[in-house]
């Protein structure tokens, strides 16, 4: 049957409340008797805590509780390596690490109380550089790191808390067969998600001791688990409610403020709100891992890639957080969407005494892609091969194997490359000597881990979908309603979506990794089809047909070919509640476990199998001012293979938004540190792109259907930001012949490069 809802750019289900200021974000949550919390943060990058004296702060009028690690169980949490205390105990490991928390009658009192908490530090020399950290005699950021619980057998050495390696073929053999070998070093800077809404939580303990936590999060079940394991509370006593999220991009996937907020609520017996300031957002949340990348590539003179050796150092800061996964993912992306028969990719997650780095759109992909796609242009130029042609020549196709030894299908990279080449006018002469065009490609996965959904037929035949995917702005609430509406044959306006509440929706791992359309979409579609089976069983008797002959469309169930004899969903809702007395619920649990990895292809990989590969290509035209080095991005085209666009306008929005974050990454954004402290903690000093920095962007949707995805769909949340920096670097080189191998590509760097060439 023809699809009527999937594939349409329907208006978002959350747009009206957001356009009218009615949407409820975390800071809009108010509870009677609520207190306000602030965190005391370490001034030292590395120190022993000799003494914390909170007696003066506790005595301040209006202060209801001051807690330190002494008031909490001695636990450590973390998504992969359990190394993080709720509040620093005995030792601080980065400037900004929280070591005490205050709850007071208003924010002003809480802030004043911080100044009355006395801390004696014994300062120690910090490690602020990954090259220092990996030296064999380097001091350990975590002296007892080998004792931490780890969810997988991480390969650790000193301050490298996890190492992942991918091996395909034989790189030495490959380099021996190559006509040319290129060796280059690239580096990328510290940036952060810069969501407009800060992290925050409100925690309240009820009369029975159960805790409710409102929070702005990408994973209500992740927050629930972290509170449970860090404060030693059973999950049955923790309810997590996710409020509307004002931007996340990976920064809200881990529980940063919730455990301490719950501890304060329990200590005071009153609801407590904790919202971070912008200064805290910029210096004490989870920035993108800065990277140092050595990349060695062997090619034949006709441009065929034969070997690649990559070594990546990722600065994970003082705690591992999602670093091990990001390191693994970076190694996975290092070969690009190309056929390379011999690969050795080694990625190291390195501890230093700085803010813990964490998940941010692309998860290691943007760093490594900047290196690999920049080098590919350098290779093409050296060989005299066209930069677009070299990519087409080596691009993966259906039937090729990837670094996991999996056979790929649904590979849309060539279509993406062709479409951007055409759209940008590849090969045409530039209208000015200082204009240039650059292209870059990417690939990643969009299906991982598990998701559950329930679909209920309500009393009046409308539908309730319980699916704990977090609406971060990407539009998942809408597309899940589209999917369920399509599967059941009811208008999506009849679908009530219940999402981020651990009491009201079944388990979902997290909203991240571009996984929601593919993984949660599959769970929602499966739950809907389970409900439909039960509905057809029920309807079959009344319609005097076999369930196999029934279809549902337009809000009714009827025999194929005889739509006039039907049972409406309204009738069915009434019957199930008041006649048979057995309301219908369809349930599903989806876990991505296939296809497995080939033996020996990867070591130290912290995820179960990944799938649903997506591909993309971007081309940009820039104009460079040769005197100032200023780069203006004039035009951009971005083609992304998403399998099937459930909501094309939403997909465009993800591509456009991802691209502009990529522009910031390439040209403007950098967290600047002096002696380990962040010095640019306002939006005046941290240059997130404005409407004046942004070019005309043409998003191109490529649909290389994946039959395992819901209606053929795959994900698109991250890809838009992955190849952008490389495309811009390549365009700048095309314009003025200057190759910048370190991000950000500041105007100073470009101007210097132009001057040196002259």
């Amino acid at each position, binding site marked *: 049957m023809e699809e009527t809802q999937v594939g349409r750019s329907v208006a978002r289900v959350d747009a009206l409340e957001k356009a009218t200021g009615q949407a409820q974000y975390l800071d809009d949550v108010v509870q009677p008797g609520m207190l306000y919390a602030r965190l005391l943060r370490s001034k030292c990058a590395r120190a022993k805590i000799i003494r914390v004296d909170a007696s003066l702060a506790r005595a301040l009028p209006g202060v209801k509780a001051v807690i330190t690690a002494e008031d909490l169980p001695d636990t450590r949490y973390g998504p992969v390596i359990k190394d993080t205390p709720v509040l620093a105990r005995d030792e601080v490991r980065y400037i900004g690490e929280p070591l005490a928390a205050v709850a007071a009658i208003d924010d002003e009192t809480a802030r004043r109380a911080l100044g009355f908490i006395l801390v004696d530090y014994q300062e120690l020399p910090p490690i602020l550089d990954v090259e220092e950290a990996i030296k064999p005699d380097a001091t350990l950021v975590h002296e007892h790191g080998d004792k931490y619980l780890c969810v997988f057998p991480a390969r650790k050495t000193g301050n490298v808390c996890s190492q992942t390696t991918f091996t395909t073929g034989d790189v030495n053999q490959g380099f021996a067969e190559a006509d040319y070998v290129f060796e280059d070093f690239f580096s990328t800077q510290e940036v952060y998600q810069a969501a407009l809404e800060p992290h925050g939580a409100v925690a309240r303990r009820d009369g029975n001791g159960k805790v409710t936590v409102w929070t702005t999060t990408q994973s209500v079940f992740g927050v629930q688990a972290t509170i449970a394991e860090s404060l030693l509370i059973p999950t049955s006593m923790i309810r997590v409610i996710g409020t509307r999220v004002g931007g996340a991009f990976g920064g809200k996937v881990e529980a940063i403020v919730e455990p301490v907020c719950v501890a304060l609520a329990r200590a005071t017996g009153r609801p407590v709100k904790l919202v971070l300031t912008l200064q805290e957002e910029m210096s004490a949340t989870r920035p993108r891992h800065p990277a140092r990348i050595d990349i060695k590539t062997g090619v034949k003179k006709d441009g065929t890639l034969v070997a690649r050796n990559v070594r990546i150092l990722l600065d994970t800061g003082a705690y591992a957080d999602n670093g091990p996964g990001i390191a693994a993912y970076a190694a996975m992306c290092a070969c690009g969407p190309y056929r390379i028969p011999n690969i050795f990719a080694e990625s190291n997650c390195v501890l230093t005494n700085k803010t813990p780095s964490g998940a941010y759109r692309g998860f290691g992909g943007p760093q490594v892609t900047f290196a690999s796609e920049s080098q590919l242009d350098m290779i093409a130029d050296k060989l005299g091969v066209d930069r677009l042609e070299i990519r087409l020549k080596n691009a993966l196709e259906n039937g090729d194997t990837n670094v996991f030894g999996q056979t790929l299908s649904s590979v849309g990279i060539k279509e993406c490359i062709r479409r951007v080449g055409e759209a940008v006018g590849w090969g045409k002469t530039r209208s000015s000597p200082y204009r240039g065009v650059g292209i870059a490609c990417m690939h990643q996965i969009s299906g991982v881990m598990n998701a559950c959904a329930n679909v209920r037929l309500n009393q009046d035949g409308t539908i309730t979908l319980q699916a704990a995917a977090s609406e971060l702005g990407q539009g998942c609430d809408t597309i899940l309603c589209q999917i369920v509406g399509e599967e059941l044959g009811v208008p999506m306006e009849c679908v009530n979506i219940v999402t981020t509440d651990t009491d009201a929706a079944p388990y979902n791992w997290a909203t991240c990794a571009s996984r929601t359309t593919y993984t949660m979409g599959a769970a929602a579609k499966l739950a809907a089809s389970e409900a439909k089976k039960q509905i057809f069983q029920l309807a079959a008797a009344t319609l005097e047909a076999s369930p196999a002959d029934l279809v549902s469309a337009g809000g009714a169930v009827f025999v194929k070919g005889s739509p006039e004899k039907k049972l409406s969903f309204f009738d069915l809702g009434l019957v199930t509640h008041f006649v048979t007395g057995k309301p219908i619920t369809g349930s599903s649990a989806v876990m991505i476990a296939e296809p497995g990895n080939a033996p020996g292809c990867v070591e130290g990989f912290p995820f179960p199998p990944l799938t649903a590969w997506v591909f993309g290509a971007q081309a940009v035209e820039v104009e460079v001012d040769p005197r100032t080095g200023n780069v203006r991005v004039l035009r951009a085209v971005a083609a992304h293979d998403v399998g099937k666009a459930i909501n094309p306008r939403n997909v465009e929005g993800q591509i*456009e938004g991802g691209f502009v974050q990529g522009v910031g990454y390439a040209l403007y954004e950098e967290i600047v540190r002096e002696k380990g402290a962040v010095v640019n903690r306002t939006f005046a000093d941290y240059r997130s*792109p*404005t409407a004046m920095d942004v070019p005309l962007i043409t998003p191109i949707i490529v649909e290389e259907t994946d039959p395992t995805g819901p209606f053929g769909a795959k994900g698109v949340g991250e890809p838009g930001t992955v190849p952008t920096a490389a495309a811009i670097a390549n365009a700048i080189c095309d314009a003025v012949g200057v190759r910048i191998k370190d991000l950000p590509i500041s105007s100073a760097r470009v101007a210097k490069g132009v001057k040196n060439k002259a």
Partner: protein
Amino acid sequence: MKLNIELRVNGETYPVAVEPYWTLLDVLRREIGLTGTKRGCDGGDCGACTVIVDGKAVDSCLVLAVWANGKAITTIEGLAGDHRLHPLQEAFIEQGAIQCGYCTPGMILAAKAFLDGNPNPTEEEVRRAIAGNLCRCTGYVKIVQAIMSVVETAARKGN
């Protein structure tokens, strides 16, 4: 020592006792309970807290509540008329200009204040007018398209 002031917000008058150092943003959200205006950077750099005061777009985190005493203030809650959305709100919804929605109230009000005084701008002028409103989700593409569609519709109607 609190001061008694009157804030005229969206056509209604709110008498409220404020500390002299409270910002208009503090008072709108906390004392009056109009939470549509968002707190972003709290330092005048992101525009999420934009409201309209006496016809001008203003960062409400940068003005004191006492300064706003007696002035005509419009917040996002005051934009929709009786059962009808403002054309900017409709355009933002139709064009997909809303993702996370956190910048949306400020962005719409900044656009409204600008268009009220400049009904026929170029795209470049629109981009300049909203340069003080950061958005991390949309890349501004559909935001600019939404604002331009309102300009074009108004021009067609001969306004």
